[in-house]
């Protein structure tokens, strides 16, 4: 079991024939992900990575029955790519593209919601259910199958955390990179709700950062409704106020957005908060004894 994606997922890649799309689609295929085709407008009918290329997402969905799309288009057309996927009936849209204008992301997210599609990202590493499907740019070899759910705003920090979890003798049920932009499709709460219903997930690791209040919202939800152990790490304890730290959303705009404040609120909600990612392994052993 897992959340959102698994061995049954039929995936198409938007921006299939581009440099990034080609490289990562190849990696996903090697991992065992069921990539059923790709979309590059103007290249419909060609073959790429031994799969069909379509002009539009609609065509691809009609012919392949795809239900997941993985997006690698340039930022200027990222918003449109999400809208096209939702329009074509794709149910899970994973957008890797970094640098989509906020207003584009805003409209795309609203449209996806209207169409009943789930957006993951943008500006995220994607989602992986180990040994079943890797839909993103993460190194698959780091993620061993197991029972810890991982939700993260950051890319390499997710790999770092997964590595620590695995080194400590645990594994991952599903790891979902929710992205570091100001507007993201799937939030911590959305992912927590899914992990709550997933029987195989016994504990959750949450990786947040400065900026916005998604972690604060998550803390409220955890306190009220979440019934599995949660550990958290918040990046940016030393980040200066008002400076953007790499991610578009990683900027402290008010006292609420600081790492310290988020850590405090999470602790109050019963979450085990650690200072450095290396603690994940030790904390897991302590907190979730017997779940490996």
């Amino acid at each position: 079991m897992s959340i959102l994606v698994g061995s049954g997922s039929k995936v198409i890649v938007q921006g299939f024939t581009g440099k990034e799309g080609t490289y990562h689609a190849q990696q996903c295929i090697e991992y065992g992900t069921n990539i059923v085709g790709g979309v590059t407008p103007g290249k419909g009918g060609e073959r790429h990575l031994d799969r069909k290329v379509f002009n539009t997402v609609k065509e691809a969905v009609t012919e392949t029955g795809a239900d997941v799309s993985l997006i690698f288009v340039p930022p200027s057309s990222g918003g449109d790519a999400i809208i096209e996927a939702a329009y074509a009936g794709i149910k899970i849209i994973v957008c890797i593209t970094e640098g989509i204008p906020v207003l584009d992301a805003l409209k795309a997210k609203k449209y996806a919601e209207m169409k009943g599609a789930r957006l993951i990202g943008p500006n995220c590493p994607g989602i992986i259910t180990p040994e079943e499907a890797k839909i993103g740019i993460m190194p698959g070899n780091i993620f061993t199958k197991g029972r810890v759910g991982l939700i993260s705003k950051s890319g390499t920090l997710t790999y770092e955390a997964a590595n620590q979890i695995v080194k400590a003798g645990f594994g991952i049920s599903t790891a979902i990179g929710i992205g570091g932009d100001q507007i993201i499709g799937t939030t911590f709460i959305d992912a927590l709700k899914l992990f709550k219903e997933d029987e195989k997930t016994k504990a959750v690791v949450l990786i947040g950062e400065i900026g916005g209040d998604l972690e604060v919202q998550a803390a409220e939800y955890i306190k009220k409704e979440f019934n599995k152990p949660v550990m958290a790490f918040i990046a940016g304890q030393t980040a200066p106020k008002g400076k953007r730290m790499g991610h578009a959303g990683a900027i402290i705009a008010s006292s609420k957005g600081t790492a310290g404040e988020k850590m405090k609120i999470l602790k109050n909600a019963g979450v085990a908060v650690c200072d450095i990612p290396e603690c994940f392994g030790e904390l897991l052993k302590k907190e979730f004894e017997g779940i490996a």
Partner: protein
Amino acid sequence: MKIHEYQAKELLVRYGIPVPPGEMTDNPEEASEVAKSIGGGMWAIKAQIHAGGRGKSGGVRLARNLTEVSEHAKAILGMNLVTPQTGPEGQLVRKIYIESGVDIVREFYLGMVLDRSAEMPVLMLSPEGGMEIEKVAAETPDKIIKICVDPLIGLKKFHIFEAGCKLGLNKDEIKELYVFAKGLYDLYTGLDASIVEINPLVLTKEGRFIALDAKIVFDDNALFRHNEVADMRDFYEEEPAETEAGKYGLSYVKLDGNVGCMVNGAGLAMTTMDVIKLVGGEPANFLDVGGSASAETVAKGFEIILNDPNVKVIFVNIFGGIVRCDRIANGILEAIYGTEINIPIIVRLDGTNAPEALEILKKAGNPNIITSDRLSAGARLAVQLAAGGEK
């Protein structure tokens, strides 16, 4: 991207928003001529820098005659203006904006930003014109009227009618305010702004609304479709190293410590800074060389870090994923080959092929390179060496 007040006002005018007559100059000798051509009997001489808080710091002065205009212009141009937002080092004033005085009946605050929780642009109005909105929010939050505007619908008359009634405006004033707010909303969405702030927004004797000050910040990611806005960028107002890093797709923020950091990925880069602080050190910078670091980005990263004279040691923290650690290790060696780096470089590599990578670095025999396979251990060593400790 930030722009100056005089540029913001140019854009406001383009969107039909009234501003007082004014003109920018960088020549103190021209100031009185400029004031004369603007007309009127009173002028404000305003320093043009990107930081706020100019008024309280002597960067905005009133002149009642042309001699005073000239005096103030000479005093402000070329001054190093220190405001609460510039930091202690201040900012050199290269341009001033000379503006005609306005008869003020009432002052308000009007701003538009993204409300991340509501996931919509929010229009904020407050009767506390001239006060920082953060201060109003902290002290008297009830005074702020917030209107979330769904971008699929846009700003409507009823939005402003509701707000105008709360502010005690009459029907004609509310109509005026709507035209003003609509212009602001159109600018915000039309030019992909991330912050538009009119503070104060003033109501004149004639019942008109005028933008007395204006601050606009743009979404960097949308500049590709607004060349006229991108051209307004003022490099003098930016940290040169941050601008240089941006050209190479690296994200760099200068800080005050002595441990230079080079990391792949923004989250891990922030974490690296945090760990350095946790073990008693101070990071010299935030530097993200991109999720998939390459020899080129690593080389550029070294160059940027080494331009900071405070840096005593460099801590490289890279998690190798699809880009394997052994390739990154070779990249590091290539990057420093032939350069004169004579400070310690602590390299912590983990992830795919990490053991092989650490072996490559050890074999290279460069006495300045010290390897580590753990984040906290590497950070501790870096901090120790930066403080003058032994290897």
